[in-house]
């Protein structure tokens, strides 16, 4: 199960970062994003997951992220 959550995190992190990097590179540097091949993986993460994730309010996203297993689910005093 941990492998699944790692897969989700690794891919979501990669494609969400790529999307925001494209936005910021355009805004700050006037540089175009790189265009890679449209594999099924890219289509899913870049064209389905990222737009859907971006539509959700932060509190919902945060709840989903924090529902995954991890150190944050154990006891931590702030």
């Amino acid at each position, binding site marked *: 199960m941990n492998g699944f959550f*790692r897969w989700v*995190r690794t891919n979501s992190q990669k494609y969400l970062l790529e999307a925001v990097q494209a936005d910021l*590179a355009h805004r700050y540097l006037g*540089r175009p994003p790189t265009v890679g091949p449209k594999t099924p993986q890219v289509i899913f993460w870049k064209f389905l997951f990222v737009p859907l994730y971006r539509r959700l309010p932060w509190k919902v*996203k945060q709840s989903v992220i924090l529902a995954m297993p*991890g*150190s944050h689910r154990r006891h931590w005093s702030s």
Partner: protein
Amino acid sequence: MTNTIVVIGGSAAGMGAAGAAKQVDPDARVVVFTELSDVAYSPCGIPYVHGKEIDSFDRLILLGKDHYEAQGFEIHYETVVSAINLAARTVEVPGQPAVRFDRLILATGFEYERPDIPGGELDGLYYVRDIRAAQRWDEVLDTVKRAVVAEAQPIGVEMATALAHRGIETHLVDPHPWAMAEIADPDIMAPVEESWRELGVHIHLNTRIKAFLGTERVHAVKTSDGEIPADMVVIGAKKLPNNHLAAQAGIKLGSTGGIIVDDHMRTSAAGVFAAGDCVEVPQGTTGVPIQGLSGSHAYAQGKVAGSGAAGKLRSYAPVYVPWGLVGGKWMVGGVSFGETLAGALGIPFVLGVAEGISRARYYPDFKKIRVKLLAEPGTLKLIGAQIVGGEGVKERCDFLAMAARQGLTLHDIAWMENVYSPAMGALNEPMALAAQNGLATAGQS
């Protein structure tokens, strides 16, 4: 009965843990296994020796082997632990009897993400980590005319700068649109890129490495934008948690691949602690687990783990991650989130940006500083910061991390008191200016 504490790993977390354990329980038997030939040196200093800012690797060694021997530590150098047997409470070392433990501390650190491309097995690929290897590579560098730095992650940024300082024709190749694009923002890295160009670094952004070319030794790098001849390649790739032993033993890992721990650095296995690059800990503002922090985080976590293993539980708090490094002639740093990370996660923020100076404008050699603050909309609590400047970056990042931890707002920072002394601080503190601009953006000035 003597408490036997076994530590796997001899870097910052491992030696921090070993030292704390002995401090809490001087009678404990503390056994450290390390795959390397040394402990207690600063691997973070290696790029600066390569760059000739530091004149000798000896300066990176903090304490000698005899010190640890005199203190009663049993350190097994160049020794690989092959397995952990939780049921028998032992660690296994090939060719030696199993070593029993009462408490175990995992400080197995990181491993570089190996590029999954042709030529990865060639000689001439340098993974910066071990001081002995660095000494050998330093001699090689005397013969190198052209080098490629593969990826502008933090170690790649430091090594590109070091090689350029050394007069080597340096090519920095990175698939992202700017250097360190997973951590730093483009406007923060822009001055660094400019100064690299002044130093003669060739920057190849938005460029992927497709293969390392050569027969036995690398002689060129094939990229998405053509071939680059190279006498060597520094691999500046991402660091991944080294958790093979923990995973084999059934110790729980999180979504980052780091070992799951609580605030006492206890893992899912009774009597087993973990610290450093192999664990994940929650980020303070969001609670999101993160992994792969700095040497100072690893050392502090090691202290908590070692103390707990020796019988005195201490607590480690969620992190706000002040960080910093040198790129080109600039210092860059930050706290928790910049626009890139906050934007990727989708965290809403109010932005305040300002440029200031590090000393009075009439004092010689003052440096520019750009400060960017991110605050939570509504409350205007600080959630992140990024800074680039000629000096004073570390102190500001440390302060801003504490400000975020304490829940300070842009209001607090905008009208903070600050040192004004011509030689070390300007009248207008750049952090305060950034906060004032943030308040204006939020309509609360």
